[in-house]
Each structure stands twice: as C-alpha cells, then as structure tokens.
C-alpha cells in the first residue's frame, strides 16, 4: 500500500516546489514508484521542472473530461531513473485556473474531490505506487486543504522567519491538530536557512539549538533543515538538482529527507 504525502506551507516562497520535485525525483532514483500531482491549481508550475506540454491536465480529470491515467506523464526514462516517476500537471491557462476557483459551485468542488479520492485508490494500486505526492498551494485554500485531508503524511515547509513561524503555528492549531486523531501525521521542513555553511563540500552546519527551539514553538518535529543556497535562490531557471547535480549539498539534504520520510512511512503502515 503506497503512502500519500502532501506538501504545504503557510505562505509562498518557501521553496516547496523545488523541494517536492527534487524529492519525487530522488525517490524514483532510489527505485521507488512515484506519482507527483500538481494540486497547486491556483499557480501551477511543474512544467518549469519537467518540460512537458501534456494533452490533458488535472483540471480535465476533475471536470470529468479525462481519466486519471490520461493526465499522467511518465518521465522516468528521459530522466534515467531506476524507479518510476509519473507527473500529473495542472493547467497553467488563466481561464482554467479561474474556472476551478470561481466558475464552479461548492457541490461541483466536492464531487470533483470525491472523484479524485476514488482515482487515488486506483492510482496507488494500478501503478503500484510507493508514494503519491501532492504538491499544494500555500495557505488555507480549498484544494490545498483537500489535498491535506487526502494524505497520510503531511509536510509543512517554512522559512525561519517570525511571519512563517506564527502563520505555521496558526495552521497547525486550526487545521493540522484536528487531523491527527484520524491518522494523519505532520512534520516541519525548514528551508532557506540563513547562516549555514553550504560552501564546505562535506559539511552543512545548521544550528541544532535553533531547530529544537522551532520544534518547541510550533509543536512539531522538524524532519529536514535545508540551508539557503545562493545558486538555487538566484538561478534563472528551475533545476532538478537531484538528477543534474547529485553531489550538490541541496541534493544531499533532499536525499536525507527522503530517507527520513521512508522511515516515517514505514512506521505509519
């Protein structure tokens, strides 16, 4: 039985998309069977990492105009992965984003989500997935919340800033804590930590004391702490570092998180 992972954040700019895409690729490099679905339906951008123009999008599936299998793109062989990586893209077209947000009533939204839940089971069993990864939009928005409810393991990305900390804590209190009693587990991933030393090839120093303080403050385990890498931060295009630069410190951090998620996933079975 595969595990469903959802990645979420209080606000944008936490580096969620870069982590999620690299994590999905890392799992597949480890030989896992992975499917990544772009539930960031309000600002889809997976095409920046995987250069594909699919014929059908997640939006078409939710509208009942395509099967879930129709929207998946298998990128495994082109990326030279040991396992499998299927991507389900969201439509970046303005009218499609508008449609999903405004044009449909609540009943339509619920029905579309129920359709996804039925398809999720088929996806995991038919594609023999180890991981179904749901990338969500930041904040408390309808499709982000639904994706969180559909997942077993939840990952909250945040930067080490007061605003992120207060907002994340608020989301945990208002939403995440109520999900725990129904089997969900959530963890924090810190990203873009300033003051670490990523330039030393074999050592990335993250302040452990700071991590413990954050854990205490937000009330959740920090499963990953990624320093701020200038080359990533100021890169002019999006890169799958896990594949292109596996020795990059960022790729090593992602691998470390992947291994920890493997452990958490086994424990939650």
């Amino acid at each position, binding site marked *: 039985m595969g595990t469903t992972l959802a990645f979420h954040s209080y606000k944008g700019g936490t580096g969620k998309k870069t982590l999620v895409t690299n994590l999905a690729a890392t799992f597949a490099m480890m030989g896992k069977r992975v499917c990544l679905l772009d539930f960031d339906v309000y600002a889809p951008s997976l095409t920046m990492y995987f250069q594909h123009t699919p014929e059908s999008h997640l939006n078409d599936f939710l509208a009942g105009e395509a099967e879930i299998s129709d929207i998946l793109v298998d990128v495994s062989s082109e990326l030279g992965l040991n396992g499998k990586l299927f991507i389900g893209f969201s439509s970046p077209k303005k009218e499609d984003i508008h449609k999903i947000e405004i044009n449909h009533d609540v009943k339509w939204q619920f029905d579309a989500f129920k359709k996804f*839940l039925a398809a999720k089971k088929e996806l995991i069993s038919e594609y023999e997935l180890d991981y179904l990864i749901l990338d969500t939009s930041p904040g408390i928005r309808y499709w982000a919340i639904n994706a969180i409810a559909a997942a077993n393991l939840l990952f909250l990305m945040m930067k080490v800033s007061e605003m992120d900390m207060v907002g994340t804590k608020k989301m945990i209190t208002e939403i995440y804590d109520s999900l725990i009693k129904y089997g969900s587990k959530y963890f924090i991933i810190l990203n873009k930590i300033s003051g670490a030393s990523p330039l030393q090839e074999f050592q990335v120093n993250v302040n452990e004391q700071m991590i413990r303080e954050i854990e205490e403050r937000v009330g959740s385990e920090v499963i990953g702490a990624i320093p701020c890498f200038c080359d990533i931060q100021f890169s002019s295009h999006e890169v799958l570092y896990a594949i292109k630069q596996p020795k990059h410190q960022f790729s090593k951090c992602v691998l470390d998180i992947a291994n920890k998620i493997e452990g958490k996933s086994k424990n939650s079975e």
Partner: protein
Amino acid sequence: MKSCDVFPGSRRLIKGTVPPSSLLLIGPSGVGKTIFCKQFIYAGLLVSEPCIYVTTNESPEEIEKSMKTFGFDFEPNKDNKLFRIVDGCSWKLGGESSSKYVVDSQHDYLTSLSIEIKKAKQDLNNIRLVLDSVSELTSRCDHGAVLNFLQMLTARIRTEGGKAICTVASGAHDEHFMNLLRLTGDGILEMKVDDSGKEFKRLLRIFSLRGAKHKTNWTPFEITDKGIVVKSETELRCALCSKLIDWEPVTKIVDGKKYCFDTLDCANTYKKLKSIYGDSFE
C-alpha cells in the same frame, strides 16, 4: 493505467490479485462462455500480456470478427505477435487457415494440438491461454487422453506464471468425467441461465479458486455490445468517494449517523473533511 478485470467480473468477485491459475469455465451452450474467453484475452492484450486462443469450433476469422463486434481491438497485437490463434477448427474445412498454428489431420488430433500450442508459446512468457472448448475435444478423442492433455497443459501454464481458461459445456459429459475434469484446474467458474422469473438472467459464480479469497454466490451478468458486464447484487457505494463497495464495507458512526465506506482510509478522510468543513461537507 489499465484498470481492468483479469476476466469479466474478477475485481468484483476476487479480493486482491488473481493468482497464476488454470480455470475451468463450465456452462450451458449459449450462456456466454466464448465471449467471456475473448474478453479474458482482450484484457490480457490491454496490459501487454501474450495471449493464445486455442479454438476447436470457430475459425480464426470468426474469432477475430466476433472480437471486433465487441470492440476488442486486437489488431495492434497481431503485428507485435502478442495475440496468436491456434486453429484446431479449420482442418474440418480442408485445412485453409489464416493462422500460423494449424492442427493438421495427418497426426493424432491431441498430438497435433500440443505441437501447435508449443510452437505458439515458444518465445512467450506468462501467457494467457484460452481453450474453447474441452467438450469439442472429447467428441474427437478418448476421455482419458483429453484429461492427460489438459493436466499437462494447465500445469505448464501455471508453473510458467500464466493464466488459462478452458471451457466445458455443462450437461454434455457424464458425472465421472466431469468429476475428473474438475480436478485438472486450480479453480472452477460456473455459468448458468435462470429463466424462472419474469426476466431471463445469466449468472456467474466462482465455485473454487485456489490461492485467492473470492465470493461464491451467483452473480448476474449481461452480454452488452462491449462484452460481458458483471453486475453487483447490491449497489452499496462509499459515502465519500462513491466507489462501489464490492467487499465488506467499513462502517463508522459520524455525528450520530451511520456511514459505509470502501476503505478505512476513506472513513478517516471523511472524518478529516468533516472536522474541517463541518456539516457543509456532505
């Protein structure tokens, strides 16, 4: 994703995966055994499994024509040679056949059939095989020889990880032969017709299947223009995802109301959504 049954109704009648097995499909003439077999073959082709159809009473042309009628498009697999027909029928018509694997009248029938099946499966693994029909074989060959032939064929398919279905006409054989025949396979599928009520009903059941948990009750099915559709006796659907619940439902009380779910995961997701959206989520 090819979300399809291994054979018509398999996902509804069997829990989990269908093990490598050779099955006997027993039913009266006209109930739908041959269509069932063609659909079994087509389901295999959809997931790129090599398939061999051994026919004793239809020519390859007739099989292909009938499959096309139901929309079972096998043409791409003829080119990649995943679909092969062993023709044990055309010899009666003088031996002309479009198949490469044709039983000839020079050898003993079962020997020739064995040779052609062996040739057809030579470069293939994990095959699906249909033998339609065993009853036709007994009209030409000694019962003991047919049983030996079937035992060897089914054992070989099973040990190679394949799946086979052999059809048998019910009422066409004596009880002793049927009892011995039932021992040759790993499982028995039965079909029957019920015309006692207002409606003419076709019914299917899995009498036995080694290595799998399955339902044993008679389940209605229809022959539609897309092939056999196995129906559900009850239309119980998951309160969350609306999926048909084929097995025991997960029953939970939420806010004093009883709900049936397909899985525990659905039950928990429902509770999560309720806790977030309150009563507006229904």
